[in-house]
């Protein structure tokens, strides 16, 4: 009956408890503010945070790391990824080896940002970035194409819809 012992037994005990509670509130009032004034003032997330939009990476020679293997799509619990593989033209390859991704899409209406896709990727082609600003005005906009995913995300605060007004 440990909780029972703390229960105020009488009126005075009740007052004391209320005062203790108010004490917590008053202490809180004088502590520094943690609310971010987004979007007027944007704090960069920690440098290695992977909390936002995906990025399809390239090798230094410009070839895409993605080989269109669809393992990310298989791993995804939300079925958010669509990949279509295709043959590489040996003269003009898109990625090293035989296969590349002809099409690659992530549907951010489905994605739950769990990162399982990144873990599944055998070539480290897919990573997540800190670009958490994903507000859309249409369903189509929420489906990122391969071209979009190959581009590094815009700096925070510049995405449409983040400006005040």
């Amino acid at each position, binding site marked *: 009956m440990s909780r029972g012992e703390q229960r105020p037994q009488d009126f005075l005990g009740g007052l004391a408890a209320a005062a203790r509670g108010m004490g917590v509130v008053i202490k809180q009032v004088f502590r520094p503010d943690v609310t971010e004034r987004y979007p007027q003032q944007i704090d960069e997330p920690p440098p290695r945070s992977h909390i936002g939009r995906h990025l399809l990476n390239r090798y230094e020679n410009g070839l895409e790391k993605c080989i*269109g*293997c*669809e393992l990310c799509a*298989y791993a995804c619990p939300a079925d958010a990824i669509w990949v*279509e593989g*295709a*043959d590489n033209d040996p003269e003009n390859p898109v990625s090293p*080896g*035989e*296969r590349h991704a002809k099409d690659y899409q992530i549907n951010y209406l489905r994605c739950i940002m769990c990162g399982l896709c990144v873990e599944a990727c055998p070539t480290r082609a897919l990573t997540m970035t800190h670009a958490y600003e994903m507000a859309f005005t249409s369903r189509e906009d929420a489906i990122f194409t391969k071209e979009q995913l190959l581009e590094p995300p815009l700096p925070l605060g510049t995405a449409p819809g983040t400006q005040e007004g």
Partner: protein
Amino acid sequence: MTQEAVTLTIDGKEVTVPKGTLIIRAAEQLGIEIPRFCDHPLLEPAGACRQCYVEVEGQAKLFTSCTATVAPGMAVRTQNSSEVVHEAQVANLEFLLLNHPLDCPICDRGGECPLQDQALAFGPGESRYVEAKRTFEKPIPLSPLVGLDRERCVLCARCTRFCDQISGDRFIELFARGAGERVSIAAGEDFLSPFSGNTIQICPVGALTATPYRFVARPFDLSSVDTVCPHCSAGCNVKLDVRRGKVVRHLARDNLDVNDAWLCDKGRFAFRFPDDERRVTIPLLRDRGLEPTSFGEVMDAIGDWSRGKRVAFLTGGRLADEDAYALSKVARTAFVTNDLDHRREFAGGEAERLAAVAVTDRALSVTYRDVERAKAIVVAGLDAEQEVPILHLRLRKAARRGARIFVLNPRRTRLWDVAEHVLCRPGQEAHVLEQIVDGEGGDSGVGRAADALREAGEAGVVLAGMRLAEHPLAADVALRAARRTGARFSLVPRRAGDKGALAAGVHPRLLPGGRRVDDPGERAEVEAVWGELKNVVPGRNAKQILEAAANREIDVLFLVGVDPLRDFPDARLARHALENVPYKVVQSLELGSLEPFADAFLPAAAFPERDAHFTTWEGRAQRIRPVRGPAGLSRPDWEIFAGLARAMGGSLGFESLEDLQEESVGLLSPRAFSGGASAWVGAGAPQWIDELTLFTYPLLVDEGRLSEGASELKAALEEKPFLEIHPVDADKRSIADGGEVRVRTQAGQAVVPVRVTPDIAEGSVFVPFNQPGLAANTLLSGRFTAGATVEAVAAAEAAADPERLTVGGGP
């Protein structure tokens, strides 16, 4: 046949199996899974991969369970109960993986790979191998259909054994030994077997892959349905794999009663036709041009055209059984006509009676199992490899089991290494078969066939192909030959819907179940279900319908899944017919060459959109299932027929597929044939004609409409047009092999490359039915035409000739 039984124990469990059973099969019966790569139940044991080790008590060495047979009292221990076996299997998997590239992520087999699965289940978690792996150039195209990745190969010899034992097309072989051992094909050769795709499916790794499926999907992308191949009457069981509504591949399903585990390459790779861009999925009605409209309006227009008019229906062999039944009923009840036919062959005479036998007399009929177990088989007028490919594999299987096979055909077929061929001029089959009926044994091919059939008795089989149906007597004589010798008999049509259409009575003289329209007793059985039939006079067959149409004796012609210009063996007649019928209604997937002629178009649902049945050449009805709904506004054919009946002011009496099936089952169920005696009085000896007979039949891969979009298949197996002539005939006309000739008939002429070959009967010339650039029906007035002339054409002259084919470029 009683077989000696053997009792043994596996992992302590007792099992009794027939003598000669392999240990691995006995284990399967107990549900014990032994890992394996090279073992395949339909191939002979090879013991190549060494994965299936088991321990036999009292034996020092481990056994490979896929090669060792059971013995009485044997005590076998698998990985489940023996540590030694487990270790050996783990070691062997590590060994197999030494040279295996770790490219599962880009391998088409990844996700459904026996090597992946078994490495996970039975293998070591890690490899100790750090040295460089063996590398090969990859992928090597064995043909436009099959790619070979030697790095992934585990040298199980399944592919080479398939080619050796099953298809007999020995294009690929294992070369060299040790680390350098590899699957190879002769330099400059292509893997041109029409069964090449099977090697892909049985390869236990991703070493053989299908080009049309290359990088197209992953197993987890696919939804599958079990259905039946629509391409021929073999009725192979297939699995359709679909990614986002699009069919991306066909795989064989195992069915030992039908296709074993095999498909031909057409069935495997010709799957793009339902998605062809030329497909039309909206009703059209001719106003100024063909204008899109609604079903209601088209039906009303057709109703107006047809009321009280002379109507005829032509269809091909592509209709499913239910559609054929609805067509048979709508033609006879709503349109009161018996002018309907599903055949391409311009048959006549006794072939009609035979058709009735074909659907009624089950006591005679043949199944794949009968073929497999037969002791003597006569294949007449059928090029099985090209026309019903899986039957060809069954014939080869029968030959391996000791059957004696005789082929009676104007052209040598791909059974050449296992069968004796009797080459006979087209049209003379009846005469040759008569010798079998007469029981003339002796020292000729026919004599030996007669003797073999007689000896085999009940274990004899006579298969009559559609080339016999072309002759008024030949098929009937074949039936007699079977009856006389006690053999079983079957008419083997080519296309998937042929047998079903025949059974449903899409035929001018036959009602459902082979009942004759002019036989009051048989007709009454149908009338009990359909109501009184007003037209009891046998109608016109396909040829007569076209002729009547050309003579303006038909007002409305329905073309259901058929293009007379391309499908019938007389293009000129077909054109006259189309030009002289006031109203042509096309019901199909697309308009194709009928575009200028069609007055109305009714869009039909395609094969992967259908729930229905196809009946195999044996008479086995098998269900096809939809993978998606009908595209656009298209509807299943039977629904369109029901709509037509309503437009004519009647009703077909069924509104759902279930009702249709319920109604038809009684009429289609087997019954005894009660036909009268044949009018056959003897074919008589053929007259000698000093002219060439031109004949044709479709090759497996041609410009047929169900092969549309199968570009890789065509690149691999579609032949350019050619003309075959016997050396004796060629000599007389100073024709040299490889040159070009002009072939001339009453119907037309063409300049074609020539092959001089003894593999064709003297006095006949062969042109395939529909290769790119030459439709043989422009030369013919029927499947074979006597009185063709063939003359050599000099190269220069040939080049300048306007009739010349552009050979080499080709699509």
